[in-house]
């Protein structure tokens, strides 16, 4: 894009996307995977006669939580404490990492087992632990693949979606020291099972995220498929759960809504293989020490924006990624964030603020087609928030750009457009001029290339020329 106002800005979506679009293997992997899951999700949803009612309820419950988050947070803290757990509050990533590192060091271990958690990716917990000499072992198959490849996750639910089985086989052969290994998913899963089993049996500390936390009872849930979640939340002596403050639900019974919405939207299953629900500490069963770390890290900024607030409804199902025509082509890495896809395009800018050019480019990573809104189980109106954020970005530019921003071509163009559209006579005059001018660029009834500043518009698309006669002109000539 044009100028970079700070040296530390991350690359823009448009810049990164270009490189990823050229990687045909990646596009094939992601295209294949998203189309598979898209069709399955539709089947899983279509068999539910009350799906729309569930979505409505899910959205309502989350709205209630957001509007009264302070009360629910206090209630949650009390319930968890009553059930024998300890609650910690972390303003930002740094504080959360400090708390967790201290808790881990108290146990004098050099290794912890982890369940897949995007929140811990968000705060870069693994690095914080590594800096203090503790190795965090990812136990979810896809996270393990990403960790062994020293790669970054590219999907909320399936972080290694960009890798195909042949690539995974090569990785495992090298990193797990397997001389012989086929590329059958069954054999690859078996290799991971054997590698991790030893680790689970001796783990002293487990770290997890949480899908939901019940304010009323203090119950936390982890929804998963492989059993690594059960391993990490059951076998170690100490369990540390890190969770964004928005993951609250008011009552145990509210699970009846979310435990229907989430599995069908996420993995397109009627129910995912394992759901664990634990309430503090249970004597003689599971970890005897439980810590819950409640994380803000920008979430209260999202809460403060009345349009953007609905973003916090997100239950991280990833249905919006799987239907997105943009995500399908660029993959998740182009978003330069642990939250990719449509939800990432609205969540990341709100969590991080719009100062960074890269982050501020994300709300433009969309054609506003609305497929994401249609599949969202908690009815987040993603296109609405995208447009809202684009507005804020333009305002921000104007504010900080001063007089220079007024000379920006886009700004002048928009001003001219506004003037033209304001008055009928001006609009019709502009039409007449354009009709004369367009003759130079029209070929076989389409315009594929416009000159100068207008060329940006036709770089990606053809446009239809303005017809010889508009409806109004025709109507007038008819009267004569």
């Amino acid at each position, binding site marked *: 894009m044009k100028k970079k106002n700070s040296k530390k800005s991350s690359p823009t979506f448009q810049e990164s996307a270009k490189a990823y679009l050229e990687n045909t293997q990646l596009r094939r992997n992601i295209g294949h995977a998203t189309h598979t899951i898209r069709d399955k999700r539709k089947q899983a949803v279509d068999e539910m006669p009350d799906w729309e009612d569930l979505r409505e309820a899910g959205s*309502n419950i989350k709205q209630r939580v957001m509007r009264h988050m302070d009360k*629910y947070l206090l209630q949650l803290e009390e319930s968890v404490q009553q059930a024998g757990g300890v609650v*910690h*509050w*972390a303003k930002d990533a740094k504080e959360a990492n400090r708390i967790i590192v201290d808790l881990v060091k108290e146990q004098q271990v050099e290794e912890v087992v982890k369940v897949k958690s995007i929140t811990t990716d968000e705060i870069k917990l693994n690095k914080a632990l590594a800096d203090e000499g503790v190795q965090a072992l990812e136990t979810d198959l896809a996270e393990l693949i990403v960790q062994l490849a020293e790669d970054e996750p590219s999907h909320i639910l399936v972080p290694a979606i960009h890798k195909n089985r042949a690539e995974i086989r090569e990785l495992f052969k090298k990193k797990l020291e397997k001389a012989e290994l086929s590329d059958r998913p069954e054999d690859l899963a078996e290799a991971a099972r054997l590698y991790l*089993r030893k680790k*689970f049996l001796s783990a002293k500390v487990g770290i997890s995220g949480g899908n939901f936390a019940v304010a009323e009872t203090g119950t936390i849930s982890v929804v998963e498929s492989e059993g690594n979640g059960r391993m990490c939340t059951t076998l170690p002596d100490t369990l540390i759960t890190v969770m964004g403050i928005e993951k609250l639900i008011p009552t145990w019974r509210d699970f009846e809504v979310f435990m229907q919405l989430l599995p069908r939207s996420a993995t397109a299953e009627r129910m995912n293989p394992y759901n664990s629900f634990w309430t503090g500490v249970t004597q003689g069963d599971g970890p005897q020490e439980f810590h819950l770390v409640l994380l803000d890290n920008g979430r*209260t900024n999202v809460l403060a924006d009345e349009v953007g607030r609905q973003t916090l409804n997100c239950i991280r199902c990833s249905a919006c990624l799987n239907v997105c025509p943009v995500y399908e082509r660029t993959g998740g890495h182009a978003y330069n964030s642990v939250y990719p896809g449509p939800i990432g395009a609205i969540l990341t800018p709100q969590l991080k603020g719009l100062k960074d050019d890269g982050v501020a480019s994300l709300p433009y990573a969309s054609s506003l087609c609305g497929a994401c809104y249609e599949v969202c189980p908690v009815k987040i109106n993603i296109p609405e928030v995208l447009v809202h954020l684009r507005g804020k970005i333009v305002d921000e530019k104007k504010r900080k750009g001063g007089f220079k921003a007024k000379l920006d071509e886009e700004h002048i163009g928009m001003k001219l457009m506004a003037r033209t559209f304001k008055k009928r006579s001006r609009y019709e005059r502009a039409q007449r001029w354009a009709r004369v001018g367009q003759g130079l660029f029209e070929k076989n009834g389409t315009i594929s290339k416009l000159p100068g500043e207008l060329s940006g518009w036709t770089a990606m698309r053809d446009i239809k020329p303005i017809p010889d006669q508009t409806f109004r002109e025709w109507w007038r000539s008819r009267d004569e």
Partner: protein
Amino acid sequence: MSDSKDEILGRVRNALKNVPENEHPEDVSVSRAYLQEGSLTGQKLVSLFARRTGEYKAKVRRIKKEELKSTISVACREQEVKRLVIPPGFPPEWLPDSVEPVHDKPEEPLTHQELDESDGVITTCALAIAQTGSIILDAGEGQGRRALTLLPDYHLCIVREDQVVELVPEAFVHFDQQIKEEGSPMTFISGPSATSDIELNRVEGVHGPRRLEVFIVGS
């Protein structure tokens, strides 16, 4: 630590300035027009549960109570299971002589290593959901602590026909009181351990039991 708590709560309250002071959480209406109770009963309900559980590649057998002992014996032979983990409170009269029982006792719990070295585990359950083919464990009598059904590679679960409910909401209502009073750890199991992490293809069997067998017992 409490400084951060105050600061976060302060930020939350500041963000919610536009919410009227006198608004209560209950004032935000929640529409619950979704189905809360099923319409199936009797054999239709049980058949739905059997079918849905089977679709996850769990092995399902429908038997009578008096066939329990012999069918457990057959299943264990088929699965080559000898060392079978038995949770506290599991009815001893159901156990065939052909298996070698490994008892987990509260005062003398099995180690993770011992559980890992066993061939399988047998449990009862707390409830089952037909709509989703799920079995629910609440760590009660006959089910034991959570690790028991996690480390062995084979899980045989016994479900009574009268334990099957149709819809997901019915299950959560069922445990509402229990969670509030006892806070029991709950596990929902829907088929054997699985992953969709490689090209989004479902593969059965990663870390949890790779083989799940369910007996549905009629009276």
